[in-house]
């Protein structure tokens, strides 16, 4: 059964949850990364908007993505907002990843530390923080051909 609105807002209190992005956050509870896709023209967009920026259709469908892509932006936070399990004494990495589904479609999350650099291939995983699944990227495993 779908999470009640009140409970969804409470569980994601550290995010700005609204009518337009609620489906995305509901997806996180099932460890699914849902990104809005237009049911008419097929264009993906993020963050969630009430109409498709490409064709103005309202037939928006939150759709699961593979979670694979390339690191586009990378920062390391030496200080930041308090968060359970986050200790900035080791700089906390955040990446913006260009997803494979569409050129320019980006999603931002933390990343498993290692030799992360812009341009690297990553894939999506999930960790648990304060009882809520949190998306985390990690270096893509070698693909055997």
């Amino acid at each position, binding site marked *: 059964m779908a999470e009640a609105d009140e409970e969804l807002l409470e569980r994601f209190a550290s995010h700005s949850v609204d009518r337009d992005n609620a489906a995305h956050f509901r997806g996180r509870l099932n460890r699914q990364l849902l990104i809005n896709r237009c049911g008419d023209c097929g264009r993906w967009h*993020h*963050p969630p908007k009430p109409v498709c920026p490409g064709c103005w259709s309202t037939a928006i469908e939150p759709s699961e993505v593979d979670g694979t892509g390339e690191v*586009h*932006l990378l920062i390391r936070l*030496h*200080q930041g*907002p308090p968060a359970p399990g986050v200790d900035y004494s080791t700089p906390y990495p955040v990446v913006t990843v260009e997803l494979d589904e569409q050129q320019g479609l*980006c*999603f931002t999350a933390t990343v498993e530390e290692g030799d992360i*650099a812009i341009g690297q291939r990553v894939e999506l995983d999930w960790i648990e923080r304060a009882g809520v699944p949190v998306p985390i990227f990690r270096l893509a495993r070698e693909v055997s051909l």
Partner: protein
Amino acid sequence: MTSDRNPMKNAIAFAGATTTGFERRNTTRSQASWAAEACIDAMRQCDLGPKDVDGLCGSWPPANELQAILGLPEITWFENPPVPFINHVSAAAAAVFAGLCEVALVWHAAYRQPWNTAGSLKDPFRAAAENFPAVAPSPDTVMHAVGYTAWASRYMHEFGATKEDFGLIAINDRSNAARNPAAALTHPLTMQEYLEARMIRWPLCLFDMDVAVDGADAFIVTTAERARDMPLPPVLINAAVHGMVANNEEDQIDGLAHHGQHIVVDSLKAKSDFWIDGADVFFPYDGFSIIALAWIENVGYCGAGEAGEFMRQYWDAESNSVRLNGKVPFNPHGGSLSEGATQGSGHVREAIHQLQGLAGDRQVPGARTALLTPGGFFFNAQGLTLIRD
């Protein structure tokens, strides 16, 4: 689309500009007190009494509070725009041009608050006024100010730029601030000190970020005709523009080659009577050092990724700052990194003073034109060209 349409060109002027100066500490004064001081000074500078002002434009305090504080009897137009400061300039100029008011008092009060410095919480009054959310925001984001850090790392990746390139912005500002009595930070900054500074969000350190201050600037905006009857030389608004692109979220913009700054440059160039070759002084916004590097490149002084090399080429050893062709300085007041985090009001005030011949030890001899590019990449890129009457 951008166009050269600009019916307001040179019709509206700054008649005066004042500052309280800026302090990098929690002063024992309110934000409204700083705004009031600057506003009273600006009205006196222009020989204006309470009945002579009919327009108000400022963010903090809002216009209704400022009106009550100064006892201004009749206001026919007011606006409380968001920062940065060209929002205020363009709103006031358009209101005067349209006849909604004739003499607008415009202000920006900078104030140390928790969103720009945790040190503000040592002041119990500031701490009491802060409404902290019950749950802290997630760190898994590059939204808001963090976005500039993310694109700074991308800039280094794409162009092989170094931290030293960013450091030149900070050192140029600091050297210039030493000649500005209003500036918060005036002691010299060396490259070694810059490189050893505390990292806040890699790759940006303490000196890549504007300095939180208390203090205020104020301005009188009116018709060029009316300004000519006031004591100081009018500074005409040649063009004022804003720029934004469809993908304007911090992690969704198309890239360093297409964001708000590019719209500003196309639009401001089309509407203005001069560009970089005719600018006597230049104000690349520097709320974060990466923003200034991008403006230097995007207005056309050099190519993408070349701002560091460009500054080294025009570095004046004696003043320890950029002197383009031996004379044109960048942010002669010290910018947001050294004068203080004014959201662009300091840049506008200094440009007016330079064109009025009031810039003291920083005066660019005979300066008649100024190019200003406040704001960043995403939803707040702006531009302003000014000409002495």
